[in-house]
């Protein structure tokens, strides 16, 4: 056990799995960097955000495969490699780029098992960066995990801390279905206690971050930490909130949410998606269907407004759910009668 960042945890998970299984390889743009630059032979970048640093030195060009900027070919090659028995980790540098390659993800990789009648598995991990908060603007800041979770055949995970990042990535690499591994760019430097050995955080298992009795708050990705920072404000108002991190959106741990709502009778979801058809709205819909009689108040989903992510720092700050809005919504629902 040692203190590691979210970024270091992701790199460590890949190194451990690549050592364990020769079929695991990484493919993406500039994952080493420096290829084709005269006589340069080292690792120039290890990914634009440093998420593949050290892999090149450890495993070399056969298993750390730098590509041209061709997301369709990368995703499709990864899908084809997985169908052929390899276990690719493909990097989609920013999740916003899914717009240029989604056919290979949702029409191909996600459907192989079904449309080919279980003839082959598709053990593919697509690591992709989500999220607002560091000024990347409209085309590098989105959180399209609700769109991914809408697709049958895809699994979707959203680690909120270094421990889960490592354990979920190892579980995703060992999984036999395509997984969209959504890394939040604002969390890359976050530190936490992380075991040095390999371990799995199982897909489809949520976690109670803090127990409470008055209201259930389900927070996704970056929103988990922001919600945790609200706890002292909740306590000042005499509210005992139970905070749940689902960790995995597809499969989704419905039971952990139902059990909590049966106890608290109130539900707030904090979600960085666009509001229309957000994953949060699916959670509230499931809760209404399954544990309606336990509810003492309407359910609510707190998301950004229905607009692209802005570049200006003051607009971006206003875009994301923040402490004030979370406390206000929690207070409203906790006192609703």
């Amino acid at each position, binding site marked *: 056990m040692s203190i590691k960042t979210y970024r270091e945890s992701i790199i460590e998970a890949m190194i451990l799995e690549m050592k364990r299984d020769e079929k695991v390889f990484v493919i993406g743009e500039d994952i080493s960097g420096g290829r084709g630059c005269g006589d340069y032979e080292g690792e120039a970048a290890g990914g634009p955000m440093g998420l593949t640093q050290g892999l090149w030195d450890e495993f070399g060009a056969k298993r750390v495969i730098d590509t041209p900027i061709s997301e*369709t070919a990368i995703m*499709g090659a990864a899908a084809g490699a997985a169908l*052929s028995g390899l276990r690719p980790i493909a990097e989609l540098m920013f999740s916003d780029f899914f717009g240029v390659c989604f056919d290979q993800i949702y029409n191909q990789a996600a459907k192989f098992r079904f449309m080919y009648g279980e003839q082959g598995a598709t053990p593919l991990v697509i690591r992709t960066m989500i999220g607002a908060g560091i000024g990347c603007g409209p085309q590098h800041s989105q959180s399209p995990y609700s769109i991914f979770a809408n697709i049958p055949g895809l699994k979707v995970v959203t680690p909120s801390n270094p421990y889960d990042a490592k354990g979920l990535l190892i579980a995703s690499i060992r999984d036999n279905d395509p997984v969209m591994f959504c890394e939040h760019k604002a969390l890359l430097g976050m530190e936490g206690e992380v075991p040095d050995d390999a371990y799995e955080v199982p897909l489809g298992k949520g976690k109670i971050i803090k127990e409470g009795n008055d209201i259930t708050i389900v927070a996704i990705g970056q929103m988990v930490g922001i919600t945790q920072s609200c706890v002292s404000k909740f306590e000042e108002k005499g509210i005992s909130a139970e905070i749940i991190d689902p960790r995995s959106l597809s499969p989704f741990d419905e039971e952990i949410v139902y059990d909590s709502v049966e106890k608290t009778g109130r539900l707030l979801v904090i979600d960085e998606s666009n509001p229309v058809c957000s994953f949060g709205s699916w959670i509230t819909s499931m809760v209404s269907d399954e544990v309606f009689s336990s509810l003492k108040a309407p359910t609510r989903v707190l998301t950004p407004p229905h607009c692209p992510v802005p570049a200006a720092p003051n607009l971006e700050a206003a875009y994301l759910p923040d402490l004030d809005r979370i406390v206000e919504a929690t207070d409203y629902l906790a006192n609703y009668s």
Partner: protein
Amino acid sequence: MQLSRDKLLDAYTRMKKIRVFEETMRDEFAKGTVPAFIHLYIGQEAIATGICIELTDQDTISSTHRGHGHCIAKNSNLEKMTMEIFCRADGLCGGKGGSMHIADLSVGMLGANAIVGANAPIAVGAALKQRVLGEDLVSVAFIGDGASNQGAVFESMNLASVLKLPVLFVFENNGYAEFTGIDYHCGGGDIAGRAEGFGMPSYKLDGSDFFAVQEAAAEAVDRARKGEGPSAIECIAKRWYGHFEGDPQHYRTKEELETIRRDFDPLTIFRQKVEEAGLVDSKDLNLIDEDLLSQVTAAVEKAKNSPLPNVEELTTNVYEKGSY
């Protein structure tokens, strides 16, 4: 022409099987017994066969919406394939894929694909096994002239070239992208030339001539196995029928259809060549014809009399069992 007699008989059998199968499918579709859309491969038999005869079961192909011929040429199980086209429970894909999504991974047929051009990157991915694991493997993408305009195909050619992967990009230029002619849809009109622009050797040849295709395939496969990277083969082909069965083909003349069926029949051309060279006796080929007709008829009858999938199967095979 230095092929063994066995290989020649094998080639004829694969081509003729495609022809008989597709003619039977045409008739069944007209009777309304086929539950899904079908796109016939008739006229292009020499291409799938000329390529696949140079491949092993470990080599892979990725196919198109017009995939029956590729399945047969790659030696898919005829009965299970027929059942899949009839969407039956015991079909290759359990009836969930149908004609446009048929696959047989046991012989390296990685799937027909109903998204035009989308199979090209998948073939590149299969070829990565050579780089990652050092496996002896060649991967083929069959691509229509219509698909040759897709970005996915360009990206795939570039990636395969950059990574020097063992891929054959086989362009089946039958002159039509659905209902649109190549003179309209293909800028520059030279598909092989485009491939050359990505730095790979390319061929442009008569796709009605098995021997032309096979010879190019043998060279390209050899290069790929040696780690010398991808090649492109543009086969000028003739599509005897419509884009899909039921297409009235208002955009083609009777004369065109008569001419291609008279002058560009891959089976007639093959027979003429081997018989004139005295390599195979026409009697032997006639025997193959009779045998195939009864095989195909039996497969179709069996498929029609086999059950559709259970409704309980609707939501199975989405994820690995027990993992969701």
